[in-house]
């Protein structure tokens, strides 16, 4: 059986899962059983069939499981977004269509040899910086929850940092691949351009309070540097710098101190002053309200969950119980409705996606492909860890999207481009075998 036929069969399984999930949400909402609930799964299936056909023509030998896993995560995400608010789901559905178009576009443009991207490394480095810097510009830049990460053109909102991440990984991989011989010897001047571009990125991220992305970029940088040079010393120095930097930021930024306090002590027994309110109240009613309600939501799911469509996310008055539920906190919504069994399955899918990605990096024939592939996969895994770790209170919470699942157009489009890149690298590696 060819790789693509296997992909098609497993996509049919994904279609079935989507149909059951959406039917459950639809029936719970309408309180009656109707065949309309299947139309949505049909739309999804057709969309992924198109992606499959494009893959069949452009990357026939690529990994069979990446596209189905991405399809499954996107479908689960969109189902939950629909469950939380049908208007958002419509817009998100449109973004998934754009994402699949970006996936197809990337495959078609780069089907002959993606490695030529290596010669445009500085272009990638500079566009990564440009994309990160866009939201800081007046007029088009736009703040949400104290972090200035958005670009708004007309009614369209976009978070360019997501694409910046991919451009930055391509830059780091290309630069380190071309210079790996000299870098391993550790002469400082060879690090110049690398540190300049990456340092600027870190500055922009810290200045715009995008701590989640700053952490992500830092981790990706260390990972690719280690993969290219095999010098543990660099990782050690990087971690020391990270600790020193974190301590510095902690001392100087109130915003960061608040995040750490919320992480360590979300509950207080006594009423304390609450910013923005005159009355005293316990912290769980104030600064850590969102995190605590999200923890309650996870706990409410128990072992097997309430079932899709039956969780409680609104106050009796009709307002939302948890702010940002469909972006940063979608994990806790899913945890409530799917329970431990379901959310463990979703985590397994994330893990398997990562395993497949690293597997492709292992078999890739040349250094540039290896570094891009391992870098993208590592970034994907670290991003998942940062947001889920934040939600379950393992690390301080920093707002960042859950790949493929969260509401947010830029995230969906960027992750589909990432998917296309992994499939292109996989195609090249399998073709050679």
């Amino acid at each position, binding site marked *: 059986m060819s790789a693509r036929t296997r992909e098609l069969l*497993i996509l049919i*399984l*994904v279609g*079935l*899962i989507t149909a*059951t*999930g959406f*039917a*459950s949400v639809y*029936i*719970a909402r309408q*309180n*009656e*059983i109707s065949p309309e609930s299947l139309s949505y799964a049909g739309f999804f299936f057709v969309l992924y069939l198109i992606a499959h056909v494009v893959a069949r023509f452009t990357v026939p030998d690529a990994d*069979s*499981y990446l596209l*189905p*896993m991405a399809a*499954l995560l996107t479908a689960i995400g969109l189902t939950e977004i629909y469950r939380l608010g049908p208007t958002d789901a419509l817009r998100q559905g449109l973004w998934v269509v754009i994402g699949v178009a970006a996936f197809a576009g990337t495959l078609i443009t780069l089907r002959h*040899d993606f490695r030529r991207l290596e010669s445009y490394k500085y272009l990638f480095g500079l566009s990564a910086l440009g994309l990160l810097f866009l939201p800081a510009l007046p007029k088009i830049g736009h703040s949400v929850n104290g972090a200035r990460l958005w670009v708004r053109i007309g009614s369209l909102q976009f978070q360019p940092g997501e694409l910046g991440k991919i451009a930055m990984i391509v830059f780091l991989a290309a630069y380190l*691949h071309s210079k*790996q*011989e000299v870098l*391993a010897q550790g002469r400082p001047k060879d690090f110049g351009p690398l540190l300049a571009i990456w340092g600027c990125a870190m500055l922009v991220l810290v200045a715009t309070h995008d701590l989640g992305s700053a952490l992500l970029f830092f981790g990706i940088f260390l990972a690719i540097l*280690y*993969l*290219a*040079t*095999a*010098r543990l010393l660099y990782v050690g120095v990087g971690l020391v710098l990270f600790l020193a930097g974190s301590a510095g930021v902690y001392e100087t930024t109130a915003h960061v101190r608040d995040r750490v306090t919320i992480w360590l002590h979300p509950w207080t027994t006594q009423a304390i002053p609450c910013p923005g309110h005159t009355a005293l109240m316990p912290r769980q009613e104030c600064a850590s309200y969102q995190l605590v309600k999200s923890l309650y939501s996870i706990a409410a799911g128990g072992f*097997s969950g309430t*079932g*899709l*469509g*039956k969780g409680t996310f609104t106050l009796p008055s009709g307002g939302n119980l948890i702010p940002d539920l469909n972006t940063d906190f979608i994990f806790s919504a899913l945890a409530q409705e*799917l329970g431990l*069994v*379901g959310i463990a*399955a*979703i985590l*397994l*899918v994330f893990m*398997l996606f990562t*395993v*497949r990605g*690293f*597997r492709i*990096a*292992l*078999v*890739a*024939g*040349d*250094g540039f492909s*290896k*570094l891009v592939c*391992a870098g993208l996969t590592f970034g994907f895994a670290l991003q998942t860890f940062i947001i889920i770790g934040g939600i379950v209170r393992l690390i301080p919470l920093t707002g960042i999207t859950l790949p493929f699942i969260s509401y947010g157009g830029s995230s969906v489009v960027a992750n589909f481009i990432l998917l296309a890149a992994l499939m292109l690298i996989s195609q*090249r590696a399998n*073709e*050679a075998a």
Partner: protein
Amino acid sequence: MALASTSVDGALLALKIAFIVLLYVFIWRVIRVASREMRTPQDSFVTAPLAERHEKRAPRPGSLVVVSSPNLEENERLELTHEPLTVGRGPLNDLQLLEDDFASGRHALFDPRRDGVWIEDLGSTNGTFVNGVRLTSPRHLASGDIVRIGETDFRYER
């Protein structure tokens, strides 16, 4: 009405179970393939320069003997080191083929890895051939293989 709500609840329960079961069937399918592939031997994806990691224990990777060439001496023997060796007409190559008009500026790369020497075409115009077959991807060299770059033939010997 009571009947209707029982059937809705029943349907929701059935869907909930079906969703979880199908999800795990999906995961099982993917893990089955992943674990099978993990058992096959594989290279590391830490791409550090090989020389540095293995200079102490790795034996010399082998040598290239010139079989025929427009500018190199026939039967000349070039010892490979653990550093990758680039071949082409341009001045920046480790091995320059000055009078070979069929060789590209940067033509091919001999890449000594842990498992032996690999040859990789660097996007040359006329291609790189191993035993008469044009390379489409990096290839592991066996002793006695004839590598053709432009109009120059090398024999790889371990």
